[in-house]
């Protein structure tokens, strides 16, 4: 055979598919052209050379973002494409890649079909052919990236640049540069990022980032869904019957018709007056000072007293912190103000914010690490170190790539579902614009690059469980702080400490805030370190205080009846219910189905039964369930709250 006629085989491996979603954008006029809404990056290895193709998509829903269904389709296809391998002579490569694409489309179609199985509407109009055409349009940027890799011709120059730093094909035109450089241009517009496969696990303080096995189920509960799930898990676990009236409210009732009510992260443990005292940070400061607890030196000012504020800052000495008296989630807080010019800027920013009419607290800046210590009743039940958003260098990837990788992992934490680290505030990942960090720089191995100064988890900070390491004097101070506010029985105590393992009086320490609505779920789902059952202790305290009866908590099977009311849109809700129960491997039986209500019996292990009951108030798109009652069928021997020994044992578990 003549060698000239034998074409050399080309080996193509799709190594990674990444998708970057951008923040919502709306046209200001009919002539206004919007930037792309997402970018697809496909990295491949072609005959040993790494190449990256980038394409952009412009699909937007009425909220200005890529729709959830579009995202789901893209991500199923991306996952399917990852690790695809093609080996073919040059002339046949295109055809082989076409086969990969066809197989991907088929897989996406089958997945979609599986998800909507039983819905007649889908079967009626979504024929295979038409759906494939829709899919091809929807996946065009992703499929184009794959096709880009089917063009293997590289010049000598191209090959050199590929080996030195990455070779990018963007919008069909080929040019040298790094992926990071392209993304850095629109960095502040990034809203979310996914990667298949996931990047290597980030590590913080010696802990690899946590993975939670129930993430795939919990993410269907959407943003803040874990709160409802945890309430259901313990309600059913303790043998309480429940009534849910919205995604964020639950009434749990015992055998003697005594009830406890939950709303968002709040329960009956604390009084409304205690909550109001915690919202007023100056009131909190005064109560902590009265209790001889460490509080940074400071005071409150009315919003129109910049001269008095400047005089005071000079008197107590820079650096200082300014914060609105009634702010929440760290909004409006400016830390480490080093001189009068920075103070003027901080006050100007406050005047532009929603806190413009609020009094302002000025206090000395303590440079310690930030902790959230969760107190339930008179005990510390959770302790988190809240570290500002950061990445650790590996000597290979740019700062931007490391950030995106960390974000991808963070978003798999159930507590952060739907809560992007790329936020609009001037903090966390969003603050890079102001700090002028070089996103394309490759940090050295183990170099820690920190973004912004916010330690608030809502603003991108990391949570690390430190409960077992907490020095007893620190825990005692947290409990005393909660005791200083009359009526406060559940609280997140925010402290600044140099070292949580050392005695509190042997270090610079200060309590900076008491949060009576501390988020439920952040100790159950810390990013790093051990999970803590804070909600369990909330239930036990409530039962104790309100004389309620709880059954012993076990993970045994639960058999419950669920009554759902509301606009259930005919059989749509029922089909969704069957699919959901099937997906969670929970046995279910329809007892009654009316126009605006249905009744089912559900049986299975506690966690999936709680997961299913949590989802009932959400339902499928287009339905509006307004009430869900869940009643246990089997009875176990009740444990009275008055049995102190038993209750103590339960709290100790």
């Amino acid at each position, binding site marked *: 055979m003549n060698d000239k006629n034998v074409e050399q085989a080309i080996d193509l491996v799709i190594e990674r598919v990444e998708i970057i979603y951008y923040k919502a954008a709306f046209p200001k006029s009919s002539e206004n052209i919007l930037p792309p809404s997402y970018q697809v990056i496909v990295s491949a290895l072609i005959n040993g050379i790494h190449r990256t193709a980038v394409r952009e998509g412009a699909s937007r829903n009425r909220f200005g973002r890529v729709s959830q269904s579009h995202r789901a389709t893209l991500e199923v296809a991306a996952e399917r494409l990852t690790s695809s391998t093609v080996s073919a002579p040059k002339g046949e490569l295109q055809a082989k890649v076409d086969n990969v694409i066809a197989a991907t489309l088929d897989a996406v179609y089958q997945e979609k079909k599986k998800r909507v199985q039983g819905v007649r509407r889908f079967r009626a109009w979504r024929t295979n052919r038409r759906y494939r055409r829709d899919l091809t349009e929807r996946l065009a940027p992703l499929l184009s990236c794959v096709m880009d890799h089917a063009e293997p011709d590289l010049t000598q120059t191209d090959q050199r640049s590929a080996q030195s730093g990455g070779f990018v094909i963007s919008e069909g035109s080929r040019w040298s540069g790094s992926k990071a450089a392209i993304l850095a241009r629109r960095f502040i517009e990034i809203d979310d990022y996914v990667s298949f496969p996931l990047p290597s696990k980030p590590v913080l303080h010696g802990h690899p980032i946590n993975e939670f096995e129930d993430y795939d189920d919990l993410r269907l509960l959407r943003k803040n869904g874990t709160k409802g799930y945890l309430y259901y898990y313990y309600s059913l676990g303790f043998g309480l019957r429940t009534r849910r009236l919205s995604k964020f*409210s639950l009434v749990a009732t015992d055998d003697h018709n005594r009830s406890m009510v939950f709303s968002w992260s709040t329960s*009956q443990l604390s009084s409304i007056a205690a909550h109001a005292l915690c919202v007023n940070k100056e009131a909190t400061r005064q109560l902590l000072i009265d209790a001889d607890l460490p509080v940074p030196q400071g005071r409150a000012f009315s919003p129109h007293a910049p001269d008095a504020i400047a005089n005071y800052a000079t008197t107590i000495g820079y650096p200082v912190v300014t914060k609105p008296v009634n702010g929440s989630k760290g909004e409006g807080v400016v830390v480490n103000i080093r001189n009068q010019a920075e103070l003027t800027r901080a006050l100007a920013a406050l005047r532009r914010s929603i806190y413009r009419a609020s009094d302002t607290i000025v206090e000395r800046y303590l440079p310690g690490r930030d902790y959230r210590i969760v107190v339930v009743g008179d005990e510390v039940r959770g302790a988190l170190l809240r570290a500002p958003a950061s990445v650790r260098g590996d000597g290979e990837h740019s700062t931007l790539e490391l950030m995106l990788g960390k974000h991808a992992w963070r978003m798999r934490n159930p507590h952060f579902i739907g809560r992007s680290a790329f936020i609009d505030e001037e903090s966390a990942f969003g603050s890079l614009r102001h700090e002028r960090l070089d996103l394309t720089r490759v940090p050295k191995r183990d170099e820690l690059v920190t973004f912004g100064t916010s330690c608030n988890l809502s603003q991108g900070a990391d949570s690390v469980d430190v409960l077992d390491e907490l020095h007893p004097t620190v825990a005692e101070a947290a409990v005393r702080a909660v005791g200083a506010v009359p009526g406060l029985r559940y609280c997140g105590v925010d402290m600044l400490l140099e070292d949580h393992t050392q005695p509190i009086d042997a270090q610079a320490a200060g309590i900076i805030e008491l949060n009576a609505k501390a988020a439920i779920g952040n100790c159950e789902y810390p990013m790093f370190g051990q999970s803590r059952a804070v909600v369990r202790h909330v239930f036990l305290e409530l039962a104790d205080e309100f004389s309620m009866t709880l059954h012993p908590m076990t993970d045994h099977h639960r058999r419950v009846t669920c009554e759902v009311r509301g606009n259930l849109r005919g059989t749509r809700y029922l089909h969704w219910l069957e699919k959901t129960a099937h997906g969670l491997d929970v046995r279910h039986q329809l007892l009654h189905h009316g126009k605006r209500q249905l009744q089912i019996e559900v049986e299975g292990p506690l966690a999936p039964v709680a997961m299913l009951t949590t989802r009932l108030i959400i339902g499928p798109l287009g339905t509006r369930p307004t009430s869900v009652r869940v009643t246990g069928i089997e009875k176990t021997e009740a444990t009275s709250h008055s049995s102190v020994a038993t209750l103590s044992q339960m709290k100790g578990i």
Partner: protein
Amino acid sequence: MVSMSEHKLNQVSTQFDGLLVQYRAVARGFQFERFPGQLLILSDSKLPARKSSFVHSVGGSTRISSVTFLLQKRFRRALLEMADIPMPPGATFTFRSRSSPARYAERVGFPVVVKEVFGENPSVQVRDVDNDAKLMMAAAQIRAILPTDKWRQSSSYAQSINLSSAEDVGDSLLKSSDSRYLIEKQVNGSCYRAFVVGGRVRLMTQSAGISWQVISSKGDVAVLSEAAVAAVPGVESGTVDVVVDHTGEPFVVELAERLVIPDSWQEQEDAYVRLVDQLIDFECQWIGVADRVGSVGGCLLHLGGLDRGPQVLQAALFNVVGLDVTVAEHDEIAGTASIWLAGSALDIASAIEILAEQKIASVIRASPGDEIRQWL
């Protein structure tokens, strides 16, 4: 009892429930701390660790999640329904709904009352809606009312429990078309307002046109009012509005966590003073603060968070309350001062209200009683 004129009192505050709690705290010689937003902490000088807190007239026995359930009228109805409390038939609709609200109103029968679903108590409402056109107008009226509207002072806790987030305000400054309103059958008859403290009715009034007259307790209304408060876990005190229709059947139409004190409370001052004293007694007993009854000739105030000089403070108090202020100490940088106020308990309470709510001071520590003056 020395009373300010109603006109002057209206300049001090329209939130009479919190003002009354403070007035009685001064009159009864409690030491207390006061913060803006009608936040009050009563304490016992002998046992300083024991404290009882109030926000307006809502004491420590009322819990945070319970208040959310009361502010959300659909949840409030659900809790009352679970306890078999009779209410007028009602249902919620989105502002986007067109035909369903009218169909529902026809089914239950006009006239109906249109209420805000998520908002402060007693509910913002439009009454006497007796046809479809009026129903649409009433819904539009309710939709236009935003939590930030200043036509009445809002509770200091209302915004912080996501009151505003329930209503997406767009450019048009309306509630979102997805948010909901409540239609209730309007029950006509005799209207009673029962004040429940510690689970028991302590004062009952009856509507007489635009005012409320104190009456001796009406048995069935009292029983129903107590049951209504008991239906909400984590609530021991509140105000219940009951309508008894022409057949004698009572219906709960409103339930508020605050004591809803009428503007004309000074006309029946003794009754409302006794009510608030009972509230303080219940809350203090509940938390363990001892009652200290003593005569009050003046009050020592330690103020914090002052960023205006003592002249401003003196002028503010003299202009409205007519009180002379003796300034004992003042530290401009620290923003602190100690002052002595001499006057009646209501005058002193009013002065403290002005200092806190006009943001003259962010912290006020009060020690009422003539014997304190010697410390100056």
